């Protein structure tokens, strides 16, 4: 542990980062091997699951404690010294939530091509981040996203509007993440969900409370390493077993084609389920076939657009690029972020394909469709997931053989159940649980910090008590962090929404209120305060109104823009309002215009001082 002693002396620590995380990765691999050996020696699967989750959380908490700080720029922007590659990894963990890790492959498994809109949207958004936002926000030198809005447009009211949008979007998102940590913790540690939620929150706060952004950065890097290993190992293993080699992502074309043949054999899409079961569904959508209609194409591209514009407006992502040493590094860091995210996202469709093949292909020993129901019911993984209600088999036609429309499953279990379906050792299941936990915790940390920082810096320090000293500000920031975390856990324990629905809403809220005020703040000098305020309030208001009408008041969606896509309506309203109001009111003063020009060139001092 001696090397962690350098956490406080900046230079040595930064130089040694590759070594430190190299040793960390090696240590984690050794831990996996140790668990594998213990499994062979007869250690129970429950104990392995508990050890995986407990060990990794202990490491994150340790890093969080070692990164504790009482310096303002360390707390808010990790001292602006995070190298681009490491910031890329941290962003990857910050970005990939429980939904990406647990639900994405399952969504593709159940939803086929249409679901890939999430994969495209959640990666392409970074092109907008890199070209339109990140380098300019870094040059600005802000601590939070409302800090930029408040200074660029001037006035506390603009700042307050930005805080409002940020809190609504991020809080919607964070409850889904705390829900996910609770779900995984309760399963791995065998505790009730309600307790799991609070346990998860405790882990999350241990990572962020003492060290703010600095602690979150270094734990997120550690969490990225765990989650990417946990995601890749089962896929590569499974692909090897099926003879597809060690880079399955490049060669699963044949597996896709084979699924196409099997879909004909098993009559996927033709055989409709005779019964409906709450929470689970039968496979009725073809894997690679794209629906051939203008409305299907429109629904695909609008979902892509929502996820992309949402990506570029979510404060917990944008603030990661405030931590790099320079504008140049912020730009490079976006590219690295996308690379690290890509590693998981281009694997998810492969995982969905291989798992589907395991289940459908009669040539594989693991297949269940077309087998006798008595045999299938005897399988351990079928029993285990049936017991918790995530899977159901109903012999609708009474022939004793399992047809495609008689097998009901919840998509969310695909990633978690894949090691069992494919007959991999339990140590892999424990690893996957630890990965899911890392994904959910790291995103929750980023979101909680984004909310608490906006409230402590923008609301408390900038508006309520501008004379507060550093100690005071940091104490307020921490109290807010705990309070918001607790509020999130309370809301999460009610389980109001599904994980994925809440995530899509968060993106739509963020893009409705923040996308155009942020972009035009850099790219349109004429944009002024009344315009920005109108953009934020009208966007958020119209978006929320449309969501309410479509989701709860029974209004017919416009052109198939359902509740997952309400951001399109909100952002369009925001753009119109912002342009019209800006042009109808006075142009910004010379000083503001000079500031925007300064913002556009990397050279020179940041607009806001290093501590402000």
């Amino acid at each position: 542990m001696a090397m962690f002693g350098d956490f406080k002396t900046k230079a040595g620590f930064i130089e040694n980062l590759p070594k430190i995380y190299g040793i960390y990765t090696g240590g984690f691999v050794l831990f996996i091997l140790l668990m594998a050996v213990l499994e062979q020696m007869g250690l129970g699967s429950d104990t392995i699951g508990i050890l995986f989750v407990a060990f990794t959380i202990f490491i994150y908490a340790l890093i969080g404690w070692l990164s504790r700080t009482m310096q303002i720029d360390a707390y808010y922007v990790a001292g602006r010294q995070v190298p681009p590659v490491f910031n890329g990894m941290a962003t990857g963990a910050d970005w990939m939530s429980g939904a990406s890790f647990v639900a994405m492959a399952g969504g593709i498994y159940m939803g086929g091509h249409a679901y890939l809109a999430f994969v495209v949207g959640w990666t392409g958004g970074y092109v907008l981040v890199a070209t339109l936002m990140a380098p300019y926000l870094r040059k600005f030198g802000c601590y939070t996203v409302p800090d930029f809005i408040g200074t660029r447009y001037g006035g506390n009211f603009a700042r307050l509007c930005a805080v409002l949008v940020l809190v609504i979007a991020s809080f919607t998102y964070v409850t889904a993440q705390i829900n996910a940590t609770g779900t995984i913790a309760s399963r791995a540690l065998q505790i009730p969900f309600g307790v799991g939620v609070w346990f998860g929150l405790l882990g999350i706060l241990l990572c962020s409370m003492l060290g703010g952004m600095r602690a979150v950065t270094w734990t997120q890097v550690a969490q990225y390493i765990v989650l990417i290993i946990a995601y890749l190992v089962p896929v590569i293993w499974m692909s090897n077993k099926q003879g597809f080699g060690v880079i399955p992502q490049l060669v699963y074309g044949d597996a896709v084609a084979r699924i196409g043949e099997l879909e004909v054999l098993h009559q996927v899409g033709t055989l409709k389920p005779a019964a409906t079961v709450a929470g689970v569904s039968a496979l009725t959508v073809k894997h690679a076939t794209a629906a051939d209609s203008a409305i299907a194409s429109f629904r695909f591209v609008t979902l892509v657009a929502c996820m992309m514009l949402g990506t570029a407006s979510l404060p917990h992502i944008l603030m990661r690029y405030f931590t790099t040493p320079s504008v140049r590094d912020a730009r490079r860091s976006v590219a690295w972020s996308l690379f690290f995210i890509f590693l998981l996202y281009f694997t998810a469709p492969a995982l969905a394909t291989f798992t589907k093949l395991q289940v459908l292909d009669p040539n594989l020993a693991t297949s269940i469709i077309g087998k006798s129901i008595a045999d299938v019911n005897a399988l351990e993984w079928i029993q285990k997931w049936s017991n918790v209600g995530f899977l159901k088999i109903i012999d609708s036609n009474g022939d004793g053989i399992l047809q495609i429309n008689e097998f009901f499953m919840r998509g969310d279990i695909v990633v978690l159940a894949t090691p069992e379906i494919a007959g991999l050792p339990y140590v892999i299941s424990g690893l996957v649980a630890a990965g899911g936990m890392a994904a959910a915790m790291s995103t929750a940390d980023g979101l909680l910090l984004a909310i608490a920082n906006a409230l402590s810096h923008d609301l408390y320090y900038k508006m309520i008590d501008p004379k507060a000293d550093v100690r005071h500000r940091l104490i307020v920031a921490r109290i807010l962090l705990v309070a918001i975390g607790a509020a999130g856990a309370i809301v999460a324990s009610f389980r109001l929404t599904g994980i994925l629905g809440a995530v899509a809403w968060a993106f739509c809220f963020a893009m409705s209120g923040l996308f155009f005020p942020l972009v035009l703040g850099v790219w349109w000098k004429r944009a002024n305060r009344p315009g920005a305020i109108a953009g934020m309030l009208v966007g958020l208001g119209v978006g929320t109104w449309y969501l309410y009408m479509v989701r709860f008041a029974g209004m017919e969606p416009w052109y198939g823009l359902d509740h997952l896509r309400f951001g399109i309506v909100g952002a369009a309203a925001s753009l119109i309002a912002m342009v019209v109001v800006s042009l109808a009111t006075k142009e910004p003063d010379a000083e503001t215009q000079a500031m925007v020009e300064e913002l556009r060139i990397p050279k020179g001092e940041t607009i806001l001082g290093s501590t402000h």
Partner: protein
Amino acid sequence: MSTANSQKVIHWERTRRLMITHLTIWFIFSFVVHWFAPQLNEIAFMHFPLGFYMAAQGSLVVFVVQLFFFAKQQEKIDRECGMAEDL
């Protein structure tokens, strides 16, 4: 107009053009390609149906590669216009 100022104007002009170039590529691979997924699926690419491949992998690869290029190109613009940071 002083030279420093005209440099700024040139820098921003080139920066804007680079942004538009990259957003055009982004637009094609985010929206246009996927609009025609049913037609592309008729074509096989590396044994994949092309429409599926583009959504599962192709567009993603383009985005990643594009961002590394973008960073390089913008750094070049900054350097040539004398607007790069002193690091």
